[in-house]
């Protein structure tokens, strides 16, 4: 289609300012470096109030550690350590969205340091680890292969396509659970 000629060219600086997403392979990471020990100090200052000194979480604020081996259990605990497939995504998220309420105030080196600390709190890197844009993508996350593309079409679709039963579909019905037993609904 013929362009409408609307909008204007984005400048390189504008693109750079907004094109900050980081891909699993680390593309998009800016040059920089930071170590877990400095990260620990930063974390104590800017993050621990919500996420706890050891990133274990405070109250209902999210914990960022633990949960290994629970994903196939009755109560999976999904954290950066147990669940996130790619370490660069952590950089991306912290860089853009944290600290909550004061986002996009961290320098790249601080983000490297914080990411190193969170990964070390998860025992995924050692406590003396320094990370850079080169090394961060090499951190292998435990749940790296824990994701599969949506396969509902193949795996499930055939299950719920039968013409449904309309009469005498089951001999009896029993109540198994009641919301009022839990009693967690706001009044």
């Amino acid at each position, binding site marked *: 289609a013929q362009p*409408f000629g*609307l909008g204007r060219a984005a400048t390189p600086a504008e693109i750079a300012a907004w094109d900050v*997403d980081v891909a699993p392979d680390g593309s998009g990471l800016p040059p920089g470096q930071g170590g877990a020990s400095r990260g620990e100090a930063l974390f104590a200052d800017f993050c621990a109030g919500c996420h706890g000194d050891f990133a274990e979480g405070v109250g209902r604020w999210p914990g960022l550690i633990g949960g290994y081996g629970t994903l196939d259990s009755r109560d999976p605990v999904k954290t950066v350590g147990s669940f996130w*497939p790619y370490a660069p995504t952590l950089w*991306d998220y912290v860089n853009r969205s944290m600290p909550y309420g004061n*986002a996009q105030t961290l320098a790249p080196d601080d983000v490297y340091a914080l990411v190193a600390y969170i990964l070390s709190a998860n025992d995924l890197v050692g406590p003396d680890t320094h990370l850079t844009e080169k090394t961060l993508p090499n951190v292998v996350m435990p749940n790296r292969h824990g994701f599969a593309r949506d396969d509902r079409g193949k795996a499930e679709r055939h299950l719920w396509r039968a013409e449904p039963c309309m009469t005498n579909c089951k001999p009896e019905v029993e109540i198994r659970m009641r919301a009022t037993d839990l009693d967690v609904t706001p009044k």
Partner: protein
Amino acid sequence: TGAAAAMVAGRARADDTLITQVQPWSRNLGDPVAAAPYGLPTPHEFDVVRRTVDWLTADAYSSVSFTPIHALDGTITPQGCAFERHHSGAIDLRKEDYRLMVMGDVARPLVFTYADLERFPRDTRVAFCECAANSGMEWRGAQLNGAQYSHGMIHNMEYTGVPLRLLLEEAGYDTSRRWVYVEGADAASNGRSIPIKKALDDVLVAFKANGEALRREHGYPVRLVVPGFEGNLWIKWLRRIEVRDTPVHSREETSKYTDTLADGISRQFTFAMDAKSVITAPSPQAPVRHGDGPLVISGLAWSGRGAITRVDVTLDGGQNWKVARLAAPPAPMALCRFYLDVAWDGAEMLLQSRAIDDTGYVQPTKAQLHAARGMNSTYHNNGIQTWLMRADGSVENVEVS
């Protein structure tokens, strides 16, 4: 003013003074026109509002409020009571300060102002927006006692906006690329990846909902409308669209909005919202106070894969079903209102509804979903909902065999 007429046993009913005496509203003037240049509901409907569940989230800035679907009818959701989900609050962004960048694998990276968007050909259509987590709290069984809470992370509005396709064409997108990445201007928005096939199909860069400007909490001035796909993709305060060859695997599409199966493997990019329905009244917040006899059962059905073709309703927990009446010819990826008019015998009932869409998909039970997915997938719970209606007309959220 005026008591209702009392029944006098064995005699003629007393005259209702609300009728026999001239009431003030039939004598005096009411409100002048434009008493409210922009009006709100009457105070008598004070309880038909968005509600929150405090214990769900750490604070109210990354949280959800629920549409009072138990008190609504028809299909359109007024913006004022349409559910909200923010990850760092609803931001105040003026049209004058609004910028939209289309970049990545494009011939001409472009920046649009709000005024620019108004110059592209635009479309108007109705679409439902359902959070992937809607009914998530109900995944393992009956939990929240009200349709507002169990199914209220949904709204249905008429949107007007520019087809995303036109903006991608304007920038000269690389036709070999398979994804676009879309991102908002709020702090939390680290974006979502959408297959470019969908982006070129029916996605709208929308600026109006139900005819008027988007409300702040719905993304003013511009949000994405992604018909049939989970609400998290409907980026509010949309600021950037990047054409890419691969998804970004952002936090919102790895840490969240993925569905963990029994073996611990998580489904990713589960975009489409499957066919689903719920009886909105009677329901726990909408009990029946009128005793036996004529009873209207009213509910909503929808499918992210097409149009609803049929809704069945059971009164006995799934032993026998009746085909419900659809209020209007259902539109694809829009809410459909169904009714079943029954003569209630006053005995306990187990109410359920079951939606069928034009792909032949039949809404499953939770047991069927559990068998297929295990107990941890949580998102995309489109299982059949059961309400126990007691002889006194009160209603409870229950789980049945």
